[in-house]
């Protein structure tokens, strides 16, 4: 037979189903965000680690201008080198039949058997390139997908001026291009950038590289020092136009991928715990108050002879049931949302498979925090009841000491008696009001933080693609070209303005540290590429000296006026000490800038350009693109509008999805908190409200009084929450800063507005639901109860 207490438990849960469900919703929201974010993060980490091992991702990379294959013997002999893969890698403009848009292709030469030993390719469809098949190619998965390229399709590439046609035989992924961004592009654009793996020998021939290589990937032996290997490699390649070698941390795909994973990790370890803790805190408050309303029942149970232990067990059962429902719901939603997040990553991260991983501790921690908060609240509330004699507990709690207000004292009261009730109640139980107010106040920043990501993306686009990059397109040459090449680009149809961009690979050295980046040469009157300070004001390019991204200056511990050693990694590798004359606030990347003329003087040439930034006549875009395709010296074309569109479509879509779901959970938390507070208030005040109804107050008047305190809590809590949101976002972005990105902590006014509206709406919906209950208030029944 079921004991009476168990029956009571079931009935109580059912009778309070509205509250049970909304409390469960609060905790479920916290858990869902926590579980989803962490599992998505762990999935990325695991996929990356597994894939790197399986595909034998190289440890060290270097490129040179043209090194003889015989050098391979000496490279492999370097102590610590386990394996070296020598190859030809070239960027070229590629075109798809019937499509005028020029694209950038990275062509990678395959070894004779078609299977590189390092950075192994994983075929998603089709087959490998047959040994010696000069016109076959594998294409990277993203490019193939974005451009609907299937095995059998034709892709043409302009190899050093000569047009070559390849038949696509397969679609592949590579650990080197998990995140495939075109050179110089901060973000991947699968439509416009693709990797083609082709027969190595014929590629070498096309670039006059027979018997030579210009790129090497190295796997280190276990325990080997990457630094020592890179030093030796640099020494060997120096004669052959070698650039400074780099390890995985500077490998583009790995760097972006790791940054992204770090960001996911930050996202998973900052916002979701806040969600979870806020939910736990609110759970604590709500459950404490709920048990408070059961005080008389507890006293009756005690009077009947039930012991503290049995009563405790009963309420623990109640809380475990409510919190358990929340945990179950939260885990379910978390898994679902986690899978959804993973699915949204798939187009970015080209792993052979991106599998969902849930580490067991994640749900365990989430459940423990939720249960802990619930049980702590139960213990506190029960202890308060147990301290009383049963007889005392059976009487309703003595009213708190209400205060006389000076402004309303005596007969000339300005405030109606009904509103005086509200004021006295609020001032007599400041802690209770404060708790609800706090509940409202902390749910607002959860929404603000969620919506902030969309703002950050908009701002990044605005700054990067409108204020910094003011041209419409960037044309990159196969090799840095003399200034007359810039003039040639300026003469292409549709070009209104053309400015050279020179970016030379360089190492910046101080006594303590060094950093490999590019020194960008800009014309003194640069209009298409501008430098901006922290307040987004343009900074002029100084005639002398170096301007640094402020984060690069920080990293190298440099201040304006300090000197830094600059080595340009090209030609005769000039080394100079240059004074830092200014700092700029790049959002993306860490760069160093010089005037075009100062850079040319350092390089002892008359000025060269690696790329040209152009402003286009929008009506002549087609003609311009055709002109680019016909220019043999152009290796790639970046079109700003496409980059922006791509950025919004890819990153924007993911962020919007994640942010909306976060915001939804945040609003659920607000709803749960306000609903429970109003619902408990109704329970506590039902007697007073019934009295008011009897003496002639209308339902609306009574509702106004019941909801007045909630409305005030919303009215004060929401602005407070907006202020909190502002500060939380500022703290949050610090955690999110990576080497590649800096996120400005600017929340759009619309996001503040939406956050406020969303939480207010959650509050009003709660009130509307409780209001329906108010309509059914049993006027006679409550009057039969004794005071």
């Amino acid at each position, binding site marked *: 037979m079921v004991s009476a207490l168990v029956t009571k438990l079931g009935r109580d849960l059912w009778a309070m189903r509205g509250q049970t469900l909304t409390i469960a919703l609060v905790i479920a929201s916290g858990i869902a965000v926590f579980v989803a974010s962490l599992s998505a993060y762990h999935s990325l980490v695991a996929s990356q680690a597994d894939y790197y091992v399986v595909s034998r991702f190289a440890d060290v990379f270097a490129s040179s201008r043209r090194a003889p294959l015989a050098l391979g013997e000496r490279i492999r002999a370097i102590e610590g080198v386990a394996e070296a893969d020598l190859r030809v890698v070239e960027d070229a403009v590629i075109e798809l039949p019937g499509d005028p848009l020029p694209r950038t292709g990275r062509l990678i030469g395959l070894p004779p058997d078609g299977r590189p030993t390092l950075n192994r390719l994983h075929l998603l469809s089709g087959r490998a390139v047959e040994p010696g098949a000069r016109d076959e190619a594998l294409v990277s998965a993203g490019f193939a997908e974005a451009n609907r390229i299937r095995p059998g399709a034709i892709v043409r590439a302009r190899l050093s001026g000569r047009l070559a046609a390849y038949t696509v035989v397969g679609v592949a992924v590579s650990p080197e291009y998990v995140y495939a961004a075109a050179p110089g592009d901060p973000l991947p654009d699968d439509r416009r950038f693709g990797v083609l793996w082709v027969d190595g020998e014929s590629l070498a021939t096309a670039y006059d590289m027979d018997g030579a290589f210009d790129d090497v990937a190295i796997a280190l032996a276990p325990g080997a020092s990457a630094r020592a290997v890179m030093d030796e490699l640099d020494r060997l390649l120096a004669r052959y136009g070698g650039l400074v070698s780099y390890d995985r941390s500077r490998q583009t795909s790995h760097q972006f991928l790791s940054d992204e994973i770090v960001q996911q990790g930050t996202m998973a370890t900052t916002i979701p715990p806040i969600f979870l803790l806020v939910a736990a805190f609110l759970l604590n408050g709500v459950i404490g108050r709920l048990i408070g309303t059961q005080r008389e029942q507890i006293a009756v149970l005690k009077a009947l002879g039930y012991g503290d232990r049995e009563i405790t067990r009963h309420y623990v059962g109640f809380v475990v049931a409510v919190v358990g429902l929340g945990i179950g719901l939260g885990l379910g939603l978390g898994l679902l949302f986690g899978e959804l997040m993973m699915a949204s990553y798939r187009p970015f991260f080209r792993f052979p498979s991106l599998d969902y991983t849930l580490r067991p501790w994640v749900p365990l921690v989430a459940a423990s925090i939720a249960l802990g908060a619930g049980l702590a609240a139960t213990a506190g509330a029960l202890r308060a009841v147990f301290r009383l004699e049963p007889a005392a507990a059976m009487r309703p709690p*003595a*009213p708190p000491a*209400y205060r*006389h207000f000076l402004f309303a*004292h*005596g*007969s000339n*009261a300005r405030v*109606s*008696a*009904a509103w*005086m*009730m509200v004021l*006295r*109640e609020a001032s*007599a139980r400041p802690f209770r009001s404060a708790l609800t107010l706090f509940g409202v106040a902390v749910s607002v920043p959860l929404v603000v933080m969620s919506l902030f990501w969309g703002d950050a993306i908009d701002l990044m686009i605005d700054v990067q693609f409108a204020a910094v990059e003011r041209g419409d397109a960037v044309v990159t040459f196969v090799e840095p070209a003399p200034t007359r090449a810039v003039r040639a680009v300026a003469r292409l149809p549709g070009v209104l303005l053309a400015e050279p961009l020179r970016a030379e690979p360089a190492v910046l050295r101080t006594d303590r540290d060094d950093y490999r980046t590019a020194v960008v040469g800009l014309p003194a009157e640069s209009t298409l590429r501008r430098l901006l300070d922290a307040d987004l004001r343009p900074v002029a390019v100084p005639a002398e000296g170096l301007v640094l991204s402020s984060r690069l200056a920080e990293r190298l511990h440099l201040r304006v006026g300090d000197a830094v050693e600059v080595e340009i990694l090209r030609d005769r590798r000039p080394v100079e000490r240059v004074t830092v004359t200014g700092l700029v606030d790049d959002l993306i990347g860490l760069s160093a800038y010089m005037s075009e003329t100062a850079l040319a003087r350092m390089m002892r040439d008359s000025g060269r350009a690696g790329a040209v930034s152009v402003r286009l006549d929008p009506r002549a875009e087609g003609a311009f693109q055709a002109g680019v395709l016909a220019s043999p010296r152009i290796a790639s074309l970046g079109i700003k509008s496409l980059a922006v569109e791509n950025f919004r479509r890819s990153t924007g879509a993911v962020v919007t999805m994640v942010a909306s779901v976060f915001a939804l959970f945040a609003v659920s938390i607000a709803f749960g908190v306000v609903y429970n507070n109003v619902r408990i208030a109704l329970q506590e005040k039902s*007697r*007073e409200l019934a*009295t*008011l*109804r*009897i*003496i*002639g*107050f*209308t*339902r609306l*008047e009574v509702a106004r009084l019941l909801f007045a305190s909630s409305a005030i809590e919303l009215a004060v809590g929401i602005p407070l929450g907006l202020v909190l949101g502002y500060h939380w976002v500022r703290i949050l972005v610090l955690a999110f800063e990576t080497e590649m990105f800096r996120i400005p902590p600017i929340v759009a006014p619309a996001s503040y507005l939406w956050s406020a509206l969303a939480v207010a709406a959650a509050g009003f919906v709660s009130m509307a639901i409780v209001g329906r209950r108010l309509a059914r208030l049993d*006027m*006679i029944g409550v*009057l039969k*109860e*004794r*005071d």
Partner: protein
Amino acid sequence: MPPASDLSISTGVAPAGAAMPSDAVFTVRGLTKSYRMGETEIFALRDLDLDIARGEFVVLLGPSGSGKSTLLNILGGLDSATSGDAHWRDHRLVGASQAELTRYRREHVGFVFQFYNLIPSLTARENVQLVTDIAVTAMAPEEALAMVGLSERLDHFPAQLSGGEQQRVAIARAIAKQPDVLLCDEPTGALDAPTGVTVLSAIETVSRRLGTTTIVITHNSVIAAMADRVLHLAGGRIARVEVNPARRPATELQW
């Protein structure tokens, strides 16, 4: 106005029909209220007829479950009937909307309950003000409290007042709007005798002074002596009617 059948068969000390006032403000005809409890239907009121005159002081006596409170609640616009009719002047009390009943209570009725039902966060004055804020023809809260002898306790919270004082605040709250009808459900039920007398005196004073129609429910038959008419209820019907030739002042009551 035809005499009520129920009253004519009652074993009245006085013939029921003779007691029927001609200037009735309350007219009740065939009033029935029943609840369904599982299989059985329970009648709180059975086909009850009643007229109450303006300014009349009526006491309802009867055991628990006899229907006193149900009758009072329907007359006060707090409860609905299953069938029959009840009017206060031209106000329909059966089948009226919630809004109509609220307006009726607001404009015409004052209630006093056994457990006072004061708002703990409001002082005596403010509890009365609660009514004067929304009433049309209200007296000042101070005046109402003076009528129940509480001029000295205006700014005390209920928790600072004795039971009798609290009940007198409740009476002041009920009469401050100068109601046409004063309905009291066991107003002395929670009080000792001397305190009860004070409270009844207050009710008596206001009903006399304001000419209010007053209906008082009680278990205490001593109180019946205060009334113009005493209705004994049993099983949802008026079983017996007593008419007092003269009302005894509350101060003379003892129990």
